[in-house]
């Protein structure tokens, strides 16, 4: 049998979230193509993939998972949706396939001792929310200045949008600001009432926790009600080109979290253009290469590949890794700045290193700001506050385990993975 490592790609190129899902999926696919073309795979193991359309619907996602999970050489799944992640969290341990959920999914799954198979790499909603509050505090000139301020959370009315609430409530208690919760019914095409409420209560800042059409609609309503865009902070799922592109100038000044940069300058993008697009094998249009979500897709795939590479280093170079072995690789990632540079990701993202207990690997993000034409990074990396998040993750994970009548992994389990 040919030596092939298989990457199932769940994606959505149809449905309400297609404009966001498509570049993301393209990035993953292009990176795979590029690695095969440039390096011939990972240590000689060819990378194969198959895409399965979920349309962002949980049941179709589960069907895709079932269809692709028994493909030989399957490495891991990236469900690309919070709902699908929830459903697969139950199934992955049974099938022994890791799930990576970069920047989304369950925040408590950061705890590798409770969630052996989940990897919310680079950040969860809790870290994201925390970073935004920090950024606002910095702008105000210190956490004490937050006292008495009012911050509104305009969120997608779904588990995705509700995840940050516990953290924000914690923060509100700590820092003494008032939190106003404004849910927006999915998909978010009608937000007049929400923004009238914003206009009435005049919060000092608005946090935008949206996905898909909800983001651009929010920005347009903000414009229409005259809410200053530079007082708005979006999560990293509300900080890509589709969210602001057709608002254009109207979104000028709007901030969002950035897990990664955008643009075609980094070497990895150049390589993709050279090895994939120049040969006419690009998945999407050339101009989209290097967009925010595209870059995120590339990063996700890069991290997946590196997990395989790490695993190979331990279990045998040039071999096809099993799901369990890839899981070990994910748990022992150590991408230093030097390594990132070598991979062509200089400046694109933060170094990341995971462990058995910490499945996130990095909790920092920057702020980017829309200037009417493109996104610019406008802050340094801000680390989420461990002091707040750690206990919450611990408590949440403990409750999860108790509900499921499960016991946490032992440190021995961390060592003995073979």
């Amino acid at each position: 049998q040919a030596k092939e490592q298989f990457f199932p790609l769940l994606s959505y190129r149809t449905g309400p979230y297609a404009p966001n899902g498509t570049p993301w999926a393209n990035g993953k696919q292009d990176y795979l193509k590029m690695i095969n073309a440039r390096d011939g795979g990972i240590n000689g193991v060819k990378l194969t993939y198959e895409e399965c359309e979920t349309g962002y619907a949980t049941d179709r996602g589960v069907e895709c998972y079932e269809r692709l999970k028994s493909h030989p050489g399957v490495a891991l799944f990236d469900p690309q949706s919070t709902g699908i992640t929830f459903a697969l969290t139950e199934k992955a341990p049974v099938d022994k396939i890791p799930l990576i959920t970069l920047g989304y999914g369950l925040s408590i799954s950061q705890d590798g001792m409770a969630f052996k198979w989940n990897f919310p790499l680079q950040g969860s909603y809790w870290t994201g929310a925390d970073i935004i509050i920090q950024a606002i505090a910095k702008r105000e000139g210190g956490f004490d200045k937050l006292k008495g301020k009012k911050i509104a959370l305009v969120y997608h009315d779904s588990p995705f949008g509700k995840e940050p609430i516990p953290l924000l409530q914690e923060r509100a208690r700590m820092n003494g600001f008032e939190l106003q919760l404004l849910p927006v019914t999915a998909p978010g095409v009608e937000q007049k009432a929400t923004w009238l409420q914003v206009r009435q209560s005049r919060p000092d800042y608005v946090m935008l926790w949206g996905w898909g059409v909800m983001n651009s609609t929010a920005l347009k309503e903000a414009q229409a009600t005259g809410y200053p865009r530079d007082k708005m902070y979006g999560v990293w799922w509300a900080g890509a080109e589709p969210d602001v592109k057709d608002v254009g100038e109207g979104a000028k000044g709007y901030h969002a979290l950035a897990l990664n940069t955008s643009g075609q300058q980094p070497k990895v993008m150049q390589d993709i253009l050279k090895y994939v697009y120049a040969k006419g094998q690009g998945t999407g249009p050339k101009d989209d290469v290097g967009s925010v979500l595209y870059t995120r897709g590339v990063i996700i795939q890069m991290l997946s590949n590196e997990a395989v590479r790490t695993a190979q280093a331990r279990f045998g170079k040039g071999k096809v890794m099993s799901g369990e072995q890839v899981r070990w690789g994910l748990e022992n990632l150590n991408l230093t700045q030097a390594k990132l540079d070598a991979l062509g990701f200089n400046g694109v993202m933060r170094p990341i290193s995971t462990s058995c207990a910490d499945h996130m690997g990095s909790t920092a993000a920057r702020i980017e700001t829309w200037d009417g034409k493109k996104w610019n990074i406008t802050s340094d990396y801000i680390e989420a506050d461990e002091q707040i998040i750690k206990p919450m993750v611990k408590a949440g994970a403990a409750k999860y385990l108790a509900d499921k009548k499960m016991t946490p992994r032992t440190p021995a389990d961390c060592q003995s993975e073979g």
Partner: protein
Amino acid sequence: MAFFLETLLGGLMAGMLYSLVALGFVLIFKASGVFNFAQGAMVLFAALAMARFSEWIPAWTGLPYKPLTDLLAFIVAALIMFVVAWLIERLALRHLVNQEATTLLMATLGIAYFMEGLGQSIFGDSIYKIDIGMPKDPVFILDKVFPGGLLVNKEDLIAAAIAATLVALLSLFFQETATGRALRAVADDHQAAQSIGIPLNRIWVIVWCVAGVVALVAGMIWGSKLGVQFSLSTVALRALPVVILGGLTSVPGAIVGGLIIGVGEKLSEVYLGPFVGGGIEIWFAYVLALVFLLFRPQGLFGEKIIDRV
């Protein structure tokens, strides 16, 4: 008080925008007895066509004058909607004469899927922009009376004016013209209409063409508000309570229904929402429509539902 008025105004404007979509439903229902679930897909399809041609036409022809190219794009999109209407009649409706309402409803759902797929494969599935020069920034009126003034949206005002004009025109059309009468006859009984020489096929093409143009206008306005992308088709779900509240068969009902639903849902969200955690407007709109229906099962202006033995 100022805020209440603002909410009220916002609701009225939102309502007008719903009516624009609702109008498409009413039109087809009134004229053929078909509850057209593909209306949302038609709005999307038309908006996609409009958005893409307003990019393509300047690129192809090099015409610099934007209003002109936009007009051309509108015309091309309208022509495309005519072709779509013709195809729908040829390939689907023609073969479903005299079938039950549920069957026809189902067929329109199939058509909706088809058009969503087709639209996105021809015109792309990203977000596109329709910029017909609608002013986006708020204006404040009556700032003498209320501190800070009352916020209104020029864009909404223009949209409302367009919706009102369309409704007026279509009402006239249905009221007393012979074709209007024939359309209503078709909705009542396909077979009998055929038997007296009303050419169903031609009528359906006409009605779907008109509905296509209404969808185009709705798509243009909603698209310039939301950006043109898949979610545009979901505005149909927000227009449904409007349709039934106003009455499935009434063109003016679409406007009145829109206003009631718009105001109702905004007021409820703003004044009731905070007590129950918010996010209630969508089901509130449906419940509001339901309450009205309990008093008038045919909607405010709908034709009386006839059951007689």
